């Protein structure tokens, strides 16, 4: 049985391909008739870029009946892919020569790449986030992390106050205090993994034979806190990437719109066609 999403894809992919083909044939025909096909492809491209940028305005105008964001998203994806094809036809599959054109070309490629990359991460990252047992709201992660740090600190201090617990005390001082206190660093922010969590847990497992009964109980709680801290870091890293990607994509789009507008004005200003 075909699901709704599959049916939607089966409709929109052929439709987009058909529109690509129609645009290619139309531009080719214009070229053969010695018409200015580059103007047609340019305006088509500008129109598509403006339409793509309008998605952001749709998001702002939530109270107006402008269709669901989900429908807009689908149109955005397929219109974006269509824009890439029109762009390739517009530049005639060549690297531009001038500085401004190179900048415009680069901006378009970066915007398109950020869009395609964004499409991938918006499909892949939620699945990874959903695997974490608990759901965290991004803005609250800092506070929750602080709570975990304090809980770990209090747990160890209380244990040490009650009786000598050298193994847990040393392990906390040497390994865990820094883990709970510090942030995970740049590389983790880019590619978060559970490797360090697993290593800490393995080290605790290795020490298990030396623990007193009380230390063993405390180590179990520390394990839970390590897991929670790691879950918080993992959520934060992935959610930050999701937010950063969106910020980058929108910023590039605004820059692209500006450059495209200047390009359009310049093309008309310096057009050497018949008068």
């Amino acid at each position, binding site marked *: *049985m075909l699901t709704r999403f599959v049916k939607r894809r089966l409709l929109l992919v052929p439709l987009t391909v058909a529109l690509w083909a129609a645009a290619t044939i139309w531009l080719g025909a214009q070229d053969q008739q010695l018409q200015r096909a580059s103007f047609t492809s340019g305006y088509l491209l500008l129109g598509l870029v403006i339409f793509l940028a309008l998605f952001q305005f749709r*998001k702002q*105008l*939530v*109270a107006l*009946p402008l269709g669901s*964001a989900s429908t807009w*998203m689908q149109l955005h994806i397929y219109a974006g892919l269509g824009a890439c094809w029109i762009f390739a036809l517009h530049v005639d599959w060549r690297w531009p020569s001038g500085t401004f054109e190179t900048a415009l070309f680069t901006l378009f490629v970066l915007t398109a790449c950020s869009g395609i990359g964004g499409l991938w991460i918006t499909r892949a990252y939620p699945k990874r986030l*959903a695997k974490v047992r608990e759901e965290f709201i991004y803005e609250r992660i800092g506070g929750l992390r602080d709570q975990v740090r304090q809980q770990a600190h209090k747990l160890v201090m209380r244990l040490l106050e009650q009786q000598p617990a050298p193994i847990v005390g040393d392990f906390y001082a040497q390994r865990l205090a820094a883990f709970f206190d510090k942030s995970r660093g740049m590389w983790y922010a880019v590619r978060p993994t559970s490797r360090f969590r697993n290593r800490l847990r393995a080290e605790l497992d290795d020490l298990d034979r030396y623990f007193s009964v009380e230390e063993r109980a405390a180590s179990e709680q520390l394990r839970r806190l390590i897991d929670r801290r790691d879950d918080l870091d993992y959520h934060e890293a992935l959610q930050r990437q999701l937010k950063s990607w969106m910020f980058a994509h929108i910023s590039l789009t605004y820059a692209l719109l500006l450059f495209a507008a200047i390009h359009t004005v310049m093309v008309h200003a310096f057009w050497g066609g018949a008068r």
Partner: protein
Amino acid sequence: MSSTEAHGTVTASPQSDSPSADARIQRPTRWDVPFSSEMTSQEVERLLRILPFADMDPSRFPATCSLRDILLNDTRVQRYQQGDIIVREGDYGASAFLVLRGSVQVFIDSLPRAALGRRETPRGRWWKAISQLWSGSAFPEVRRFGELHDGSQVGLRGASEETRIFLQDLPHILNEYQGATLQAGEIFGEVAAMARSPRGATVAAKEDCALLEIRWQGLRDLMRRAPEWKAHVEQLYRRNSLEAHLRETPLLRQLSVDQLNEVMSATEFESYGEFEWHSKFQAVQQSSPSERLEIEPVIGREGEVPHGLVLIRSGFARLSQQYGDGHQTLAYHGKGRMYGLEEIVEGWQNQTPTPLRYSLRAVGYVDILRIPTATVQQYVLPTLSRKQIQQLRQVFAEPTPTQGRFTRIGANHGKNDAKIETGLLEFIVENRFMNGAQAMMIDLERCTRCDDCVRACAATHDNNPRFIREGMRYDRYMFAHACMHCVDPVCMIGCPTGAIARDEVTGNVVINDRTCIGCATCANSCPYENIRMVEIRDDQGVFVADSETGQAIIKATKCDLCSDQWGGPACQRACPHDALIRMDMTNLPALAKWLQR
């Protein structure tokens, strides 16, 4: 053992073997908190001398639940001034009223919404929609006082739970709208209270009057112990609603008047479970699944011969089947569903009784009609063709388990039937999410945590989001803290001003800011914690305070499903990734379709 008894004793900690001396409390009993502390023995004596109590036989009541105790603890005397609204059409209530002194007017015609203090739901205008971009308040929960006066034709008097709303032009309304007058000794509101259905009419004080308000617990016991009272309520229901209810049932549509009368006279009314299930919901959640199942009253048991065809009038019931040592939930049934049809038909066709395949248990409070098996087989089934029977069996086919993990929804028993994970069904029933007509489900495997839904909600509510994007999870699905606009809206029970009510057109549960007095009855009743109490501010961000006491003015807030916006809930429309949906949880095929999208 009842759930109250099970949770009556508080122990020091879960680890301790025995509770310490100071952690012990006296076991709570039914009447620890009487309906009113102002009821006195003298008042009860006076009541016992008037009808209908004078006709009741006190010996029918056990010593632990005497008629005197019921009147002392489950009733209270309420005084109303001329024009005060006592009950509003469409409201949910948990009590009935006996007129002690004076008279009240029952409006047979529906009064206009404004006359009842209901919120009007103006649809958005283009300019208003666009201006939301810049006109949002800089402070949370700002109220513009001009907007609070929305043209309602009601006034407010009294304070706190004693607040009354009154009809400002009673003589005009009495002239304009048809009604009936009830005098001392007459009763109203009992059917809605016992059947947990919306009030059928508005009742207002025609003159200054005193009423005896009897809460549902007392009503239930009176019905149990006083046959004349039970007969009275049942007669009212039979007279007013039963015929319409049975006529709406597809199985009975083709019956002649005589046949339907036979069915009506044989039909039995039964109620199961706790009327105020929501008050014990949190405590029940702490128990194990088997304990929870244990306290759910059984309506029909797997393996037993069906005593009758069960028609659910209100509430929810869990359909389950023995699986190992436990019970597997296959579905939940709400208003309009039938139970036992397949077995009764099979028994009739084979001329041998067929045992029930599944058990049916009350989840919360369930009100049913039971048509005896013999009546169904004598008066109903012979009037149906083989094709009609087949069609009905398909429509009312029970879900079937498939390899333990999934339940197949649909009658085809084929591969194309939609399936729902059994664990999800258990989760929905355990947490009472089946009550949601507009539950917010988020697919966490598609949600990018962009918060566009929260922003859209805030943008359409003056920068105040009306839900929280967190909540209970089952696997990849989250049930967010957003008002579910419940089928059984327990939040509406007890609102002293009727500020929280169902929109007559959309059925959504909405709050009228103007008549909300901030008593928090609704927020405390909501088992899902989806109503928040907020301190309101003026345009300048200053907290608004009561001019007399200086205390902050508080209002109840919750999701209104964007009832004054175009296009439905903004949260759902704002999700670019098809991750969020407002789902009618009573519609299992729709749920299955969404899950398999």
